[in-house]
């Protein structure tokens, strides 16, 4: 009997293990994508452990969002199909929730892309895990550049109104699962650049919001600050990381640093992938650095390199680093076993 069990166990380990190992590797092969004029932007959603790829499109038959999970289940979304009459869709941000939903911040254009003015709708869309559109919220006058969702279905969005009302206004909005405003915080009055801190194009990098261990983290790249909120929207801390970033500049002998990606682990330690600008004629270098919760530079996780390095996407729920590997010109992958 024991012998039979051993044989069965050996058989199972041979058949199941490769599948398990494969499941820890998420592969995005776009070689069959006939709409691939514009490439996908790729991000890691640590809450739902999924790779999310998104792009703008003017073709309803072309996918705008593709979601790949470590379990092997994939979802492809065609949001433009859900809005007859719209000429194009621009995707500004996407996030997943542990409930399997996908929340998208998008603008729909009702007219040719190169004609203006045309009607534009600024929306938050929620798709379920099977790819069916479940909720549409018109968030005008906001345009949300970054989104996150908690396990209760609340949506956090960081956006701007385009200098709508003159005075200060909140940049961070918490929406209930039914689209009511539950809270507003992070006033433009906190920043000298006002709402420009959430718009793309800061030389310091891009803003980002994400949830980690029941905290909402808001990285404002323009001011190099990390804000920590409770999921009720209460500000718990505001940490300036500019001294740690300046230390990176000094240690690398560079001229300035641009943060490419930021992740926060369960102990509030911060991992940065940074671009280190060098004095001429040296090329810019890329490095991975760890910063302590109190905002001090701790160490280089990966030494700086001016070669073609992998992109750091963030951390898994159990704090493993996640990298996007280039497998070929049309294929990228995430290996969740890689440390």
């Amino acid at each position, binding site marked *: 009997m024991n012998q039979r069990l051993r044989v069965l166990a050996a058989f199972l380990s041979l058949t199941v293990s490769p599948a398990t190992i494969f499941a820890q590797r998420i592969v995005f092969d*776009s070689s069959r994508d006939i709409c691939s004029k514009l*490439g996908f932007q790729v991000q890691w959603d640590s809450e739902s452990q999924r790779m999310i790829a998104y792009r703008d499109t003017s073709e309803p038959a072309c996918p705008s969002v593709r979601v790949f999970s470590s379990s092997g289940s994939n979802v492809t979304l065609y949001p433009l199909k859900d809005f007859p009459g719209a000429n194009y869709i621009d995707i500004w941000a996407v996030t997943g929730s542990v409930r399997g939903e996908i929340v998208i911040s998008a603008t729909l254009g009702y007219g040719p892309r190169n004609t203006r003015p045309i009607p534009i709708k600024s929306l938050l869309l929620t798709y379920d895990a099977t790819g069916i559109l479940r909720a549409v919220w*018109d968030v*005008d006058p906001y345009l949300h550049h970054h989104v996150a969702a908690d396990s209760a279905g609340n949506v956090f969005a960081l956006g701007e109104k385009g200098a709508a009302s003159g005075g200060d206004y909140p940049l961070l909005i918490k929406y209930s699962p039914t*689209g009511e*405003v539950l809270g507003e915080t992070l006033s433009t009055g906190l920043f000298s650049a006002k709402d420009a801190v959430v718009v*793309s194009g800061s030389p310091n990098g891009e803003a980002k919001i994400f949830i980690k261990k029941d905290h909402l983290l808001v990285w404002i790249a323009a001011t190099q600050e990390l804000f920590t909120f409770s999921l009720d929207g209460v500000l718990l801390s505001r940490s300036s990381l500019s001294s740690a970033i300046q230390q990176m500049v000094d240690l690398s002998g560079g001229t300035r640093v641009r943060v490419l990606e930021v992740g926060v682990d369960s102990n509030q330690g911060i991992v940065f992938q940074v671009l280190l600008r060098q004095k001429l004629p040296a090329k810019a270098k890329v490095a991975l650095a760890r910063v302590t919760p109190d905002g001090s530079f701790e160490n280089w996780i990966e030494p700086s390199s001016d070669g073609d390095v992998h*992109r750091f996407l963030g951390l898994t729920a159990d704090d493993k680093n996640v990298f996007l590997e280039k497998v070929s010109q049309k294929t*990228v992958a995430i290996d969740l076993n890689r440390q």
Partner: protein
Amino acid sequence: MSLKLLLIPVALLLLLVAYHIASGFMIAKAIAAPNSSVKSIAAVMVRPPFQMATPHRTLLTGIRFAIIPSVSACGTVTCTGETAKPRCPEGCPQGYCYCPGCQISGCTPNYCTYVGGNRYCVYRNVSSIDCQQHGDCNCISCEEDYNNSCTAPRPCAPGVYCE
């Protein structure tokens, strides 16, 4: 007298129902494509294909926007209605949205993207200092991430309502 007393709650009830219907209609109108017919909006309101909401609009602001469309004004400079948006260059591996050469040591290309409203965005000169310092400038056919000027000028002209 008793008839009047009866009419007040009936009137209040009718008002409540009317408010509910009007709110539902304005939400459906906000989600529907521009110039949708009243019939199609009403159909969506009666049988919504998905949950709908307009979190930053009340019934009154919805009616106001329907009657008086919003205008944009940027003081002394004409609004472009555009804002910077990162976009992935053609031919790069998915997620490696940088130039030159799709390497992350390059730049993130940002394009001025039309979203309407009181926004202003201009393309930078392609021969930027950053580009000159770091090699191949041919890829910078777009705005890149250094000294982006998409955020000026602001705010609205005094006394002008902007959405």
